[in-house]
């Protein structure tokens, strides 16, 4: 029941992101999408993932998006994409991405597994922390170094 509601909300708002004329509206719809995805996480009892999704994506990254769009004042430009070949190429590449994703997910075996609704404990914060810092500590540290280098790069570019 809740699942269907959230799914319709996620897909509907994702479509609205693409179809809205005004870029600020697109961003707001994208925030709604993030909220419905967080709702799905809560249904899977992954509260930590849900709230981090909201804090990081909806709360921080989207604010920066909104900043850029507001500063550039894109309202008056109605449709920047006029070239029909460009649209054609976009449709083709989108479809092939969908194809690749479906092909990749087809054989993973997750389809057969029952999803643990409301009972899974892996999403709770202490279990997640234990797994992250015991089994996956090396990938975790490497990705944090990657983030750090991205930050340094941004500062270097900003100083130029």
């Amino acid at each position, binding site marked *: *029941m809740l699942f269907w509601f959230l799914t319709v909300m996620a897909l509907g708002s994702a479509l609205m992101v693409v179809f809205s004329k*005004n870029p*600020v509206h697109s961003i*707001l719809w994208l*925030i709604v999408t993030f909220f419905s995805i967080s709702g799905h996480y809560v249904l899977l009892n992954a*509260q*930590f993932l849900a*709230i*981090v999704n*909201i*804090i990081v994506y*909806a*709360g*921080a990254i989207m*604010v920066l998006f*909104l*900043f850029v769009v*507001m*500063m550039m004042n894109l309202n008056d430009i109605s449709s920047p994409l006029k070239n029909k070949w460009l649209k054609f190429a976009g449709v083709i590449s989108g479809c092939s991405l969908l194809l690749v994703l479906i092909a990749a997910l087809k054989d993973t075996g997750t389809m057969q597994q029952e999803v643990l609704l409301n009972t899974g404990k892996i999403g*709770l*914060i202490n279990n997640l922390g234990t797994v992250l810092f015991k089994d996956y500590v090396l990938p975790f540290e490497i990705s944090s170094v990657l983030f750090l280098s991205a930050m340094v790069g941004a500062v270097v570019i900003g100083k130029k």
Partner: protein
Amino acid sequence: MNILALDWAFAIEKMVLIAIVISVSLVIAMYATYAERKVAGFIQDRHGPNRAGPFGLLQPLADGLKLFFKEEVIPNHSNKWLFVLGPCLAMLTAMMTSAIIPWGGTVEIGGRMIDLQIADINIGILYVFGVVSMGVYGIMIGGWASNNKFSLMAALRGASQAISYELAMGLSLIALLMLTGSLSLKTIVEQQISGNWWNIVYQPLGFFIFFVCALAECNRAPFDLPEAESELNMGYHQEYSSMKLGFFLFAEYINMFISCAIIATLFFGGYDMPFVDETKLSGMTALLTGVAALFGKTFILIFVFMWIRWTLPRFRYDQLMNLGWKGLIPLALLNMVVTAAIALYTMK
């Protein structure tokens, strides 16, 4: 239909609790406006509001009535939907944070254990951060939809200020969470009640950073740059009138009340009455002293917020950013590392 199979008594209990918490926060926010002007009057050596009712106690009602009866203006060039959405979001996010604060202990009424907390969720304090990070949108959307340069500038200022201070706030909190080992506010309060000192004794620096960041997050002076009258006219709510303006102003006071309650919970023992052993009191008395203790602490903190507002001058924008990024964040990192080292050392 499993949607009908829920525990109705539980649902009703929570509904009543939500209604009480929201109406209490509204009343307190209403009288916070009165208290603010009385405190300002006291600090500036004048009377403050004293015409409506005894001691001017009816002043907030008069103000509310005035706002309701004002003409509602929606500017022609504004974005109508977003213009209305802005104050709604500000109010909504201000209210949502109250859901996880434990207002008091547990009491037994008619065979049911009733918790004076709307939801004791696993992620606890992170929920507050989630909601606070949403609070930026009220200001941003309102400021942008007004289609006014001053509003837009104020909105951008407000958002960048909120984002910058959220970081230091989170870092100062990590140090506290290392000591408590739990994100749930209820557990944090219970740890402080059961024999230990309050958290402020262990985390004085963390409390200081958290407090400064809370001031900045509530857009209170000396961090009230988004509404700096002298440079931005009225800031992000310049184009607003009537109750939509009222919502923005009101949300600020609710935010102040809620953040004081959270500070009291995290650092000052929540509903722990000092020098009293709650376990010796009977159920109802213990509950009431607990609630009274929490509200007492909250009111003292609100008074400190007001005191700061009426005594300190406003920062300049670059000073604000310097303080946030070069002052508070390194300090919070230092606090975090020291706390981690001590926690590790004492654990062995």
